[in-house]
């Protein structure tokens, strides 16, 4: 465990529980003609077995790219440039697979994709191909990993559609996505992701594009399938309401970094990082109807430039002088609860060279 810094005691304790996924110092960069976008810039996080982890943050914080980096399905020209994505399929005592080390187009990674780890995308309208039937795409997912006959695969696909609550599954299996409503499409997408019985489900904004009453159905479904199928879940969302209902642990991201992590209650009752606090205060609430909402001043900086000091300093109400010069290290603020802020630590984030021993 030499890669862990002394300041990450809270983080280390957090790791004591059985993890299924452990991301360490993940960096995913996009090298474009205008410059380098550091979409994910040194992320640490873990998903506990059979638990749900929520990643929250606003657009551009790197939460989606983090989730796509797990399976290396990053849109071009994105690339993982550093870090580990350790996957423990059965138990943490096993030797992990470092997914970041596998070849993007290689067979090893393909065997894990869709089988052990599945991905459910936001906007089911575009996450399924419009020119193939729902069944075709589910059967494909199944037969890539399990040697079923076509007929058997179709039966299993129908069974899965039934399980996710699609009425008349034997008819719907032959439908195209444009013939389904938004909620049904999202169910079909979930059916496809779960048909091989994955151990970890990554859901990227699974309910963002759908109506609230349908969202309630889908969230219910994911929750019950998580228990039924003994899954771990990594849920990416900007919606603190969805997070509050769905997860056990939370990480908050800002500008490609995790700024706070902890249990659900840590984040909601004992939010420490000024960004987390501000984010929660900006949500309209019933009791303060009509009153001005608290806002975070300024804007997210453009993606090509990163501040020298703390990423949030420019917009932070509690910024001190040193916040503009140094980047704070992750500091323990409670049991399994840490925040990346000089309010809680004097330590500086380690220089890039220090991570040399990670790989």
């Amino acid at each position, binding site marked *: 465990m030499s890669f862990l810094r002394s300041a990450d005691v809270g983080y280390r304790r957090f790791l004591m529980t059985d993890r299924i996924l452990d991301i360490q110092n993940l960096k995913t960069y996009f090298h474009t003609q205008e410059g380098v976008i550091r979409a994910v810039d040194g992320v640490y996080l873990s998903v506990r077995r059979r638990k749900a982890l929520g990643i929250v943050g606003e657009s551009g914080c790197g939460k989606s790219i983090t989730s*796509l980096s797990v*399976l290396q*399905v990053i*849109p*071009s020209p994105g690339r993982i440039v550093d870090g580990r994505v350790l996957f423990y399929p059965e138990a943490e005592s096993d030797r992990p697979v470092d997914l970041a080390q596998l070849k993007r*187009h290689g067979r090893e990674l*393909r*065997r*894990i*994709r*869709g*089988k052990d780890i*599945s*991905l459910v*995308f*936001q*906007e089911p309208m*575009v*996450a*399924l*191909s*419009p*020119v*193939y039937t729902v069944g075709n795409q589910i059967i*494909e*997912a199944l037969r*890539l*990993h399990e040697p079923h006959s076509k007929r058997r695969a179709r039966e299993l696909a129908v069974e899965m559609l039934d399980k996710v609550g699609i009425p008349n599954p034997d008819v719907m299996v032959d439908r*195209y996505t*444009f*013939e389904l409503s938004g909620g049904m499409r999202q169910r079909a*997408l979930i059916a*496809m*992701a779960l048909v091989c019985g994955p151990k970890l489900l990554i859901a990227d904004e699974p309910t963002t594009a759908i109506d609230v009453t349908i969202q309630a159905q889908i969230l219910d479904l994911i929750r019950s399938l998580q228990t039924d199928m003994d899954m771990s879940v990594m849920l990416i969302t900007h919606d603190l309401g969805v997070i509050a209902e769905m997860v056990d642990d939370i990480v908050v991201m800002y500008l490609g970094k995790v700024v706070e992590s902890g249990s659900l209650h840590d984040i909601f009752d004992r939010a420490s990082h000024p960004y987390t606090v501000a984010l929660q205060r900006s949500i309209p609430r019933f009791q303060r109807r009509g009153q001005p909402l608290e806002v975070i001043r300024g804007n997210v900086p453009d993606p090509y430039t990163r501040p020298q000091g703390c990423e949030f300093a420019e917009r932070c109400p509690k910024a001190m002088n040193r916040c503009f010069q140094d980047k704070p290290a992750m500091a323990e603020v409670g049991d399994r609860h840490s925040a990346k802020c000089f309010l809680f630590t004097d330590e500086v984030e380690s220089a890039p060279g220090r991570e040399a021993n990670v790989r």
Partner: protein
Amino acid sequence: MASYIVRRVLMMIPLLVLVSGVIFIVIQLPPGDYVSRHVARLEMEGVVTHEAEIEALKRRYGLDRPVHEQYLLWVRAMLRGDFGYSFAVRRPVLSVVAERLPYSIIISVATLLFSWVVAFLVGTYTATRQYSPGDYIASFLGFLGLATPNFMLALILMWIMYSVFGFTVGGLFSPEYQDAPWTMGRVLDLLKHLIIPVIVVGTAGTAGSIRILRANLLDELNKPYVITAEAKGVPPFRRLCKYPLRVALIPFTSTVGWELPNIVSGETITAVVLSLPTVGPMLLRALVDQDMFLAGSLILFLSLLTLVGTLVSDLLLAWLDPRIRYDR
């Protein structure tokens, strides 16, 4: 699907009627007709023509009647298979056309196939290897192809063929096969002669199609459904073909309809330079000579070709894209 095809075919009938009307108006637009031109030429040569003679000529071709009657006569005759008489060639239009149209069709279809295959391969390559040296080279050649006039390309290729391979180009057959019956040798000879016209006529269209396919595919490559496919473990090549390529082909396919007339009109100048026995040069001459029945029939055949082309592309589209199939 069946009802879609039937609907689509039935829709061609009013279109043809409309097109024939427009064609008739267009070929009637220039002042005078073939007979008056003929008479003028005779008079210039010093031949005295009698009023009665002229009237007889006009009556024979129905030129003395009002325009709408002439149109109806023309259409009625065509429905009986009589496409009229070419004043200039002095033969029935049908036999003139029958001699040349097949070669036009052969060249057009060959060009289209050539253009598709090349555009498909190069377009797919350049999109999946964006900004690679191969992409830049293909783009450069593509722009060169777009910018070079056809006749110039034809001349250059003729010169290269002649000086490097010692192969005389021009026409569609070598002299020994010119009037020979159809044999394997003649077919091979035809194919050999097709190479240059196809390249010349197809280059501009191919270059355009490469750009279209490349742009479409680039749009599709990072779409969520492609990432979903990757995330469920579909191998790269199969993923490319099954997912983004198929969708990218949809707009590509719809170009076939307007590619056909492009090819036919693009072919005219090439045909003149390469002395090809196709309808292009003949149409040009017929229009200049106001040889109305010939010109009208040729344009009508070409329009029919275009309509068939659009039909084929629509059917292909419906096959590729279920959203079109199920919309009706």
